[in-house]
């Protein structure tokens, strides 16, 4: 008898556990459903709740180096001190993993409240309904964009609604090491115009005089600049094919690279293939005179200068200046499944417009564009930031507006570009063959 009783109570216990597990699952479902509906209805409800109730918001961001993590965490600390009721949980991923992570989270309706979105992705995310419009928060000044030149904020608009707040301005830069150039007797790239011929000649001089490599190989971002220099674009307006007709552009770009490689003016591909993080590059390691590895003026200049422990020079890429463009470093967006959009908006406001935050960031995630913020931090700019500012002014004066964001198939096109570039540099494929194959593969991916 006793044993039977025992057995039944064991069964009951197990069933109870099972049911609780189910129950837990159900509540979760309920809350996600609720979250889906939130954007439409809850803004007004959350407004009252926001001031006192303790709230935790999640923030996801891209980070490739410890400096990035520190820079972000410092702002979070300041924010939490200013808003004691809001706790911030940050999560990051590196490189391409970040985009993967966002998509997996999006598929399970588990995006962080505040999502850092790259320019190349914003259209894609909005079309998939991952982000909610921020216009109401701008209207009620939770996010205060007054007095800002719309040029800096309109880039975050899709179909006339604001989905992303620009964190700061950024531009691709060709770094150079002034000491090394001086030693080799090479003039620093002229701001008024630096030609490809001059660049090639300078690399040669550096190699002859110092016996070091001039630069790394150029990749897709430099190719896009090259196309812009020839009034072309990577994608056509409809984004269902390449934006240039003449394969000669591709061929010439890679023939130049190949020629530099054969003259041993560029670091060997074997070395470049092992670059995992920003700090591993030949330039930050002091092994090359120029750093054209697709560095951005924002965070990268700080990292590079810190690692080299010297002042570096900023130059436009060789070729006509119109190839250059200013890009928002990243956007802050609010996910459509966010349960705390108001607090998320407060966080974005703090990140963008708070003077203390801006001081702590020191332009790390792109250069501030709000005149009020600029006025507040100007006096405390580090020398690095002063140089970044001068460089951005140069880009603004010579460059042209940024190309539209890449289409959803952009990652496929990039993979194809990377593979073909690799085959060309390993000399398995000629640039002309590569041009044809790239057109074929890219068009196929874009037409899907």
């Amino acid at each position, binding site marked *: 008898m006793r044993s039977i009783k025992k057995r039944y109570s064991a069964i009951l216990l197990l069933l109870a556990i099972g049911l609780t597990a189910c129950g837990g699952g159900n509540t979760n479902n309920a809350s996600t459903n609720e979250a889906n509906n939130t954007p439409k209805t809850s803004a007004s409800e959350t407004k009252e709740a926001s001031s006192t109730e303790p709230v935790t918001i999640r923030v996801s961001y891209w980070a490739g180096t410890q400096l990035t993590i520190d820079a972000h965490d410092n702002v979070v600390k300041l924010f939490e001190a200013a808003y004691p009721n809001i706790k911030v949980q940050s999560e990051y991923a590196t490189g*391409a993993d970040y985009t993967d992570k966002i998509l997996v989270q999006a*598929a399970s309706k588990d995006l962080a409240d505040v999502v850092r979105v790259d320019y190349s992705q914003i259209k894609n995310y909005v079309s*998939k309904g*991952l982000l909610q419009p921020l216009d109401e928060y701008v209207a009620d000044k939770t996010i205060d964009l007054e007095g800002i030149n719309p040029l800096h904020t309109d880039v975050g608009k899709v179909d006339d609604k604001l989905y992303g707040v620009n964190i700061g301005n950024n531009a691709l830069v060709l770094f150079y090491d002034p000491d090394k150039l001086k030693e080799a007797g090479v003039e620093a790239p002229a701001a008024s115009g630096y030609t490809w011929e001059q660049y090639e000649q300078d690399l040669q001089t550096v190699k002859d005089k110092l016996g070091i490599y001039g630069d790394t190989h150029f990749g897709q971002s430099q190719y896009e600049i090259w196309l812009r220099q020839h009034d072309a674009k990577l994608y056509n307006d409809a984004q269902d094919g390449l934006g240039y007709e003449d394969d000669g552009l591709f061929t010439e770009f890679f023939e130049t690279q190949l020629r530099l490689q054969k003259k041993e003016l560029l670091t060997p591909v*074997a070395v470049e*293939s092992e670059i995992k993080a920003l700090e591993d590059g030949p330039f930050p390691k002091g092994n090359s005179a120029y750093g054209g590895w697709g560095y951005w003026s924002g965070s990268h200049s700080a990292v590079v200068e810190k690692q080299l422990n010297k002042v570096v020079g900023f130059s436009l890429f060789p070729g006509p200046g119109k190839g250059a463009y200013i890009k928002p470093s990243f956007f802050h967006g609010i996910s459509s499944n966010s349960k705390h959009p108001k607090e998320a908006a407060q966080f974005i406001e703090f990140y963008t417009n708070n003077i203390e935050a801006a001081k702590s960031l020191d332009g790390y995630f792109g250069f501030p564009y709000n005149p009020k913020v600029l006025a507040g931090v100007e006096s405390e700019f580090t020398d690095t930031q002063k140089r970044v500012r001068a460089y951005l002014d140069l880009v603004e004066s010579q460059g042209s507006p940024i190309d539209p964001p890449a289409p959803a198939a952009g990652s496929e096109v990039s993979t194809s570009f990377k593979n073909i570039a690799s085959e060309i540099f*390993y000399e398995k494929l000629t640039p002309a063959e590569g041009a044809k194959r790239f057109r074929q593969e890219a068009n196929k991916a874009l037409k899907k």
Partner: protein
Amino acid sequence: MKRTSKQWLRNPDMYAGYAFIFPWLLGLFVFSLFPIFFSLYLSFTDYDILSAPQWIGFENFKEMFTDDPRFVKSVKVTLLYVAVAVPLRLCFALAIAALLNMKIKGARALRSLYYLPTLMGGSVAVIVMWGQLFGLNGAFNSFMRSIFGIEISISWITDPSTALGSLIVLSVWQFGSAMLIFLAGLKQIPASLLEAALVDGASAAYRFRRITLPLLSPVIFFNLVMGIIGGFKVFSEGMILTGGGPHDQTLFYVIYLYENSFRFLHMGYGSAMAWVLLLAVSILTALVFRSSSLWVHYESKGEREA
């Protein structure tokens, strides 16, 4: 005593049984069976994860076999990997197991030592370490430079001609679990048989070939099947070390599947690839099973016919 289904329902033991395995059943249905069949459905759709799947029939499969050079490349790379890495690992494991089976001092310690790489092999840390060992300035190249004075200026991991090879070596190096199974198999072989052959004057090689191998064949068979299945699923080594590169030289099937599903957002295509993989591995395994009657020796013969 014949049980009808009703009696089955009344039997409290049954409930108890199901109650006890309830958590497992829940896991099976929610986390295994449902995703499996859902992916079968997805394989006939165009699905970008973020919007609703669109039914497109056999389009994914058609594209895979007629219009996707990277798919063909990934199949080639994976087949080459399996064809080289699996037999090599088995030979290596068997050789080490045979050595450890000899009565030598410290065999136990050696056994643990040799098993160590396998314990760690699956972990990310070891894969990263592999990258350090065979990188451009890795331990291997430094060793060659300092001992033999040979200057090697390639990174074994990222050079197109050696990348796949270095991953194969990594796989062979993780021979431990196969070795342990072989070792257990070797211990099962009656010493009397070997002694009898020894008395008859058979050489060591002859004894190994004619007695050890046939008696060990069921174990070889098991290891082979496991190796093949594992080989086709190879992912993390390539993903972490090479990312499928340089220019797709190590684009393992599952890496391409992952790329399609999560990077290019062709989850439908990725699902279709997963099912093709499942079918291919099943057929291959079935073939190996079929072939087993030719070379696998079971002691209790008559019952084997399958």
